């Protein structure tokens, strides 16, 4: 869910969405100044990487740093098509079951050994090995076989048609066979001192303080202009923001209030550049569909009408996001713009509740049915103020519709284990990170409702089940599009979740860095091409 690299790959075209930074100023950025080598980029992070072997890591910090050290076979281009990374080209058989990758020649690991198809094979064998504690096996156990045809040709064969197959090879599974063969990958120092072939090389990692990467002068895609990348760990967001102003940090992610208010000063306009693009995730309120009240579709629809999504976006996110209408990000190909939208309508909500038998008989402002007042609790996880604020606004809105809502925030582990997994909730506010591939079988299929599985709201619709099955076995995009459009129509009608919002990512970068080209996949994809003109360079590197 947090896999940073995969998550970069997942990003898809959001055609009309604003990548303006401060409206259009980003556009004058690229051309200015001659590219020069040198200087260092200091990136602030709340979390510290745990391990730099991508397949073993579960946290986004690890994936962010490891993504600069390793490469995949393919990656997403700025137009969101799949383009080659370590693979020069590939052929897909007509039935979609066989993919043959032709690898780039002359690529070297940073210890000088040549990269070959054996390394891809080794990585694949490692990830499917039972002894490798990785959560990312799923895509790779779909394979029937993998073969090394020659030093630079790698072929994979699938058991059944598997739509996400090609994109899964963009994940960072490739490992240097000559260093790791026959060794227990969890036990050796490699994870803290990895050898990759990516744009940067690990120089030093000081626990709790910083990870320092130096540029790979022999990077196959051209030496990065920036000589040093420093991933600085500052656990407190307020301190990080102060470090940004004091010059101790060059780049960080801003909170909505920092983006809209605190950086709206001359100092920031002069020294920094802000960017903004939608994150591939959404926040939702999910109902426990086993609960007698929420079994009634009219009640769920009424609640959807009683909540004003754009108000939540404006107040909680300071407008830095967009209302969600389904489980896909607006302007991506699986997104269906024509589903039922539930614009805020209190009258409609009251009417639907009345039809479902909820009336305010005793006149105390809260609806009753069979003598019981309509009162339920929204659970969410502690520490996520965006979700807690959202819940508070929903509480206020639903009170107007005659529903009393309690909000309770619980520590993450307890929340998941004791409440979500055991189905001890009435409604939850949570979020899903989503991929470029629209397959959401695990979230909506009625066969995925057991403890620890992800359809914890117990959604069950035979038509959706059939569509989900069909969608992951179809390659034709137009066909798949129809399938997922239909799923969204059904979900919008049945409201198992109330889809709340899709947030924006809001990074800020010191303006001496040039060559940043905002794109639908964010800004980090062309980091090796960022540069600082000689005159503006701040950190002198001892060469």
């Amino acid at each position, binding site marked *: *869910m*947090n896999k940073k690299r995969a998550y970069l790959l997942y990003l898809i075209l959001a055609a009309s969405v604003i990548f303006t930074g401060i409206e259009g100023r980003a556009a004058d950025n690229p051309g200015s100044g001659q590219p020069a080598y040198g200087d*260092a980029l*200091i990136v602030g992070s709340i979390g510290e990487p*745990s*391990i730099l072997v991508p397949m*073993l*890591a*579960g*946290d986004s910090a*690890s994936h962010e740093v490891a993504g600069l050290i390793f490469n995949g076979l393919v990656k997403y281009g700025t137009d969101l098509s799949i383009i080659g990374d370590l693979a020069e080209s590939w052929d897909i058989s007509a039935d979609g079951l066989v993919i043959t990758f032709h690898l780039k020649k002359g690529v070297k690991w940073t210890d000088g050994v040549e990269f070959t198809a054996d390394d891809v094979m080794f990585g694949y064998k490692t990830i499917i090995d*039972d002894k490798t*504690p990785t*959560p*990312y*096996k*799923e*895509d790779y156990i779909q394979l029937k076989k993998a073969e090394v045809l020659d030093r630079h040709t790698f072929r994979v064969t699938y058991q059944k048609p598997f739509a996400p197959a090609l994109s899964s090879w963009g994940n960072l599974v490739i490992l240097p066979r000559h260093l790791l063969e026959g060794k227990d990958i*969890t*036990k050796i120092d490699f*994870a*803290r001192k990895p050898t990759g072939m990516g744009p940067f090389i690990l120089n030093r990692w*000081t*626990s*709790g*303080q910083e990870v320092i990467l130096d540029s790979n002068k022999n990077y196959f895609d051209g030496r990065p202009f920036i000589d040093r990348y*420093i991933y*600085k*760990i*500052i*656990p*407190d967001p*307020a*301190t990080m923001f*102060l*470090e940004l*102003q*004091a010059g*101790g940090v060059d780049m960080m992610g801003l909170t909505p209030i920092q983006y809209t208010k605190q950086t709206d000063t001359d100092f920031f306009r002069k020294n920094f550049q802000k960017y903004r693009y939608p994150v591939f995730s959404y926040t939702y309120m999910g109902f426990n569909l086993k609960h007698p009240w929420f079994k009634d579709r009219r009640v769920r629809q009424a609640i959807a009408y009683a909540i004003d999504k754009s108000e939540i976006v404006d107040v909680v996110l300071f407008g830095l996001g967009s209302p969600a209408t389904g489980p896909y990000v607006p302007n991506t190909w699986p997104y269906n713009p024509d589903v039922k939208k539930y614009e805020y309508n209190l009258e409609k909500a009251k009417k639907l509740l009345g039809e479902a038998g909820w009336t305010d008989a005793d006149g105390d402002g809260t609806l009753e049915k069979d003598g019981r007042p309509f009162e339920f609790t929204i659970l969410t996880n502690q520490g996520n103020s965006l979700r807690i604020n959202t819940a508070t606004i929903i509480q206020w809105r639903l009170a107007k519709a005659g529903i009393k809502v309690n909000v309770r925030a619980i*520590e*993450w*582990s*307890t929340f*998941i*284990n*004791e409440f*979500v997994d055991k189905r001890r909730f009435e409604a939850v506010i*949570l979020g*899903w990170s989503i991929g470029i591939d629209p397959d*959401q079988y*695990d*979230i909506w299929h009625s066969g995925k409702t*057991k403890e*620890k*599985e*992800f359809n914890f709201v117990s959604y069950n619709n035979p038509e959706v089940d059939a569509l989900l099955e069909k969608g992951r076995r179809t390659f034709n995009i137009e066909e798949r599009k129809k399938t997922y459009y239909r799923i969204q129509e059904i979900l919008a009608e049945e409201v198992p979740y109330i889809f709340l919002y899709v947030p924006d990512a809001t990074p800020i970068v010191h303006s001496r860095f040039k060559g940043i080209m905002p794109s639908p996949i964010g800004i980090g994809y062309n980091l090796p091409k960022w540069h600082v003109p000689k005159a503006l360079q701040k*950190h002198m590197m*001892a060469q």
Partner: protein
Amino acid sequence: MITYLFKRLLEMVPTLIGITLISFFIIHLAPGKPTDVLAELNPKITPEAREKLEKYYGLDKPIMVQYGMWLKRVVKFDFGESFSTDRRPVMEKIWDTKQPLLERRLFITFMLNLLSLFIILIIAMPIGIASATHQYSLYDKITTVFVFIGFAMPSFWLALLLMMYFGIHHNWLPISGLKSMNYESLPLLEQIWDRGRHLILPIFVSAFTGLAADSRFMRSSMLEVIRQDYITTARAKGLPERTVIYKHALKNALLPIITLMGLSVPGLIGGSVIFENIFGIPGMGQLFYASVMTRDYPLVMGILTVGAILTLLGNLLADLGYMIADPRIRAK
């Protein structure tokens, strides 16, 4: 004396086992498992994969068996490997012998707290003594208000204000961390100065907010002593007030401070989560908090056990300190 020491050390063993047993059960009572970080709400992970992970970590066994296995290893001073994805040995996380001394977590927290404790004592003792000898004077009132302002001040708030003033408005002091970007390229003397500069704000905040307890303790302890008969006697013999206070009274008034020092040992090694997070100091508080949040049982147990051992040793040292300072106790 030697027998006494031996007896005390032997007594520590059952205490320690009791502490670890209770800690072990309590942390396992908390809902959630170490595999949650990798596996929770990740649609890419199947139930079989989750079971494999749990088996891999030995979490499928009964809790008594798990404790037995843990104890067996700890007797050999092996705290096992952390459950976090990096699988590093617990001891390496607390005391990483591959890093220079100055970068080891336990050392960082210990030195920082020791420095601040030292500064607190240096300032708190004169304040306490003077407010006792000048009880209810204007000076007493002012210092009381002053130390209580420090006590009541939220440390994170004070820290942020100071960072803004010294770090951004004047750019005199660094904001967070332990050393500068260009630390490696500095000559030795400047390296020391660089580290010192980074410590000024954290130690000031920690000392200012901790001043109240020790100075009030000193004040009441002193007040008690100067009311005693032998002080009256000393004054009656015509000794100068200075000698009465600093030679006769202070010695006895300092005895309770030894207890206070013994009690502060857990704080010395435990660190503070809020404080370390604000200043970006990679100490024990951060490590412990993160390990509890991810249910990293071996790391939690490792830190608790090391903490318990050091606390028990601290108590022992305090008792020994008493014996050295107070003849009445030594006689027993």
